[in-house]
C-alpha cells in the first residue's frame, strides 16, 4: 500500500514539475573546462544530444543533424552541443571521429556520465532542447530517420509563442 502511495505521489509530481540544466563541469575537445549551466545563456535556444562513438543510432542522428545544421543556423541562433559519454581511454577517440566527419558543432566530453546522470539519461541517443529562457521544450530518446526535423520544429513553435 505504501509503495502504491509513493508511486502515486511521484506520478502527481510529474504533472507539475519543470526541469533546469544541472551544473556539472565537463571538458571540450581542446581540454577547456565548461560549466554546463552556462550553456543555456538566456539568449539562444540550446539543443543538447548525448552520444557515444560506438553507438550507431547516435552517429546516424548526428550525421543527419550535421547535414541540416547550416539551415538551422540560418533560421535560428540556436546552440548545438553534442555530449559524448565515451569512457576512459575511449574519450580520446572522440576528437578524431568528430573531426574526420567534419562536424562543426560543439562537442563536450562526459567520461564519467555526470551530466548524463544529472539529466536522468539512461539510453542513448537522447536529445534535450531548451528554449531561450532555459525551459525544456522537447525531449526525445532514440532516433527515427527524419527525427531531427522534430528538434527544429520544437524551436519554431516555441519562438512563435
Amino acid at each position, binding site marked *: 500500500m*505504501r509503495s502504491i*502511495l*509513493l*508511486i502515486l*505521489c*511521484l506520478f502527481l*509530481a*510529474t504533472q*507539475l*514539475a*519543470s*526541469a*533546469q540544466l*544541472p*551544473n556539472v563541469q565537463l571538458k571540450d575537445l*581542446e*581540454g*577547456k*573546462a565548461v560549466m554546463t*549551466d552556462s550553456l543555456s545563456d538566456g539568449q539562444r535556444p540550446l539543443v543538447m544530444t548525448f552520444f557515444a562513438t*560506438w*553507438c*550507431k543510432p*547516435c552517429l546516424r542522428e548526428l550525421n543527419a543533424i550535421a547535414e541540416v545544421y547550416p539551415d538551422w543556423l540560418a533560421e535560428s541562433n540556436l546552440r548545438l552541443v553534442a555530449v559524448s559519454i565515451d*569512457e*576512459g*581511454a575511449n574519450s*580520446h*577517440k572522440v*576528437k*578524431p571521429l*568528430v*573531426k*574526420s*566527419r*567534419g562536424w562543426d558543432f560543439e562537442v563536450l566530453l562526459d*567520461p*564519467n*556520465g*555526470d551530466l548524463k*546522470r544529472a*539529466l*536522468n539519461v*539512461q*539510453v*542513448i541517443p537522447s536529445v534535450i532542447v531548451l528554449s531561450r*529562457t*532555459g525551459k*525544456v521544450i522537447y*525531449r*526525445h*530518446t*532514440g*532516433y*527515427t*530517420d*527524419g*527525427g531531427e*526535423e*522534430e528538434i527544429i520544429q520544437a524551436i519554431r513553435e516555441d519562438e512563435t509563442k
Partner: protein
Amino acid sequence: MSLYIRPKHCLSLAVAMVNLLPSLAQGESKNSNNPWRLKPSLGIQNESHYSFAKDMTPRLRANTYIDAGLHSTNLDLGLRFESLRQPLPGYEHAQGWGLPHLYAHLRYKGQELQVGDIYDQFGSGMVLRFYEDRAIGVDNALRGASLRLNLDKGIRLKALAGQQRHFFDRGSRLYAQERGFVYGADTEVSISEYIKGLSERNTSLVWGASFVTRDATSHQPIIKYDDPSKQLRFPSLVHAFATRLNYKRGSWDAYLEYAHKSEDPNATNDYTFGTGQILMATLSYSRGALSAFVGARRSEAFDFRSSQHERGFGLKINHLLPFNTQQSYALAGMNPYNTQPAGEWAWQGEIHYRLKRGSKLGGRYGTQLKLSGSYITGLDKASTKAEGTATLAGTTAHSKAFFATGDKYYYDLTLEMSRKISNSYSLNLLYTHQYYNRQILEGYGGELYSHTLVYDAKHRLSKKLSLRTELQCRRRVQRDTWLYGAAELHINPSIILSITNELWLEEKEHYPYLSIATSFGSHRLQLGVGKTSSGMNCSGGVCRYMPETEGLYFSYNFNL
C-alpha cells in the same frame, strides 16, 4: 552509532516534495534568477521480462529505478529508489530493494561540497572511478563527503572519503561497519596558463596527480597452503598513486598516465604480495578529412577493491575499460574482450578518412572510411612459487621485463565504410577479423578465429516512412556460423517496429525477436517478444545491453 532510514521517512519525503511542487512551479517565473530556487526533476526506468520458460521461477522479473531531486544553482538534493526484488536474468548479483542513493550538493562560486552518495573519477579512472552503469549492474558510489575546489588559473583540487556501495548490503543502515573505507585526493593544473609561450601558441598542457588509500580490515584469516601454521598478514592500508599529462596543440593530442599500487593481497591475485602498475599512452591526430588514434596500455596486478575477498562486479575502486576496438553490431561483438586483472599488454589504433563529396571515389555525398585494430597479450610473469605448492598465496609475484609479452589474448582488424548513395538509400559495410583466446580468458573452448561481415542499409520509402535493414554473418573458423537479419520500420515521428532473427546455423537454433518502440513527450516505451542472446543491441533507435531472454520484454523510461 548507526543511523537508519525508515520507509515512513521515504513516504514523508515524497509527500513533502509533492506539496512543495505547486509553489515551486508557480514561483518559477517570478524568481527565476534566485540561485536557491529549487526545481524538481524526476526519472523513472522500468525493465521487465516475463519468461515463457516454465522452469524459470519467478517468471516475471523486473528492474525498477526512480530518481527524484530538487535542484537550484547552489543546491541539489536527491534520492533514488530501486527495486530489484526479482531482478532480470543476469542481474541476480544485484538483488534487493530500497533507497541506496541519497545526496546533497552545495555549490558556491565554483566550489562544491557533496554529501551522501558520490560519483567521481580521477584522470581516466585507472586509480579511482565511482560510477553507475545500470546496463551491466554496476553502482559503486562512495557514501561520504567530497570537496571540489576550482582555484584561479586552472587549478582544481578534489578530496573525498567514504564507503562504497555494495548492492543492498547496507539495508537501511547508513554504513556497513564490517566493510572498508576509501580516501582519495586529486589535483589538476593547467600548466599552459602559467607558461606564456604555451598559451600564445594555442597549446594546452595539463598535469594531474591522484592519491587513493583503502582501509579494509580483513576478518578472514588466510592460511598458507605449504605451511598451515602460518597466516598471511594483510597490510592495514593499501595505497595507489597516479600521475597524468595531457598535451594538445593544433591537430595533435597526446596523453600519458602512470599508476602504482602498493602490496594488495586479494582474492583476484591469489593473495600474492606484488605491487601493481599501469602505464597508458595515447596519441591522436586530426586534420581535415584524415584523423588517427593510437594507444598502448600495460597493466599489472591492478585489481583494486574495498575488500580483499571480493570478486566479480562488487566493490571495485578503479575501472580499466577493455583497451580494444568497440564493436556495435551484434555478431561482431559476440565474444567481447574483458580487461584481465592479472595484467596485459594492449595496443589499439584507428584511422578515419573522409572521401570528399563529388570526388570519384567519394561519390556524390562523400564516403567515410575507418580502419581499426587492437592486439592484447598477457605479461611474461615469473613467480616464486615453489614446486608442488598449490597456491601462490603469500608469495611475491614479479613480472620479468617491462616489454615482455605472454600468451596472445585477443586481436581484431576491422574495416568499415559508410556511404550515402542517394536521398533514399545509404549503407554501412563492415568486415572484422578477430581472435579470442577462450581457453585462457574463460577457461574452456580453445582459440577462436572469426570473420564477420555486416551490411546495414537505410531506405527512405516516403517522408514519414523509412526502412533499415541489416544482414550479418560470422564464421568462427572450424567451429560454427552465425547469421543475423533485421528489418526496422521507422514511422515518423516516433514509432519503430523491428523484427530480428539470429541463427546458429549448425545447431539450427533461432533467436527471433519482434519489438515496437515509441516515444511521446518525456516517455519512451518498448515492448518486445521472442528470444534473444545476450550482448549489445543497437535497435529500436537506441543502444542498450540485452540479457539472454525468452518471453515478453517491456521497457519504460520517463525523464523530467
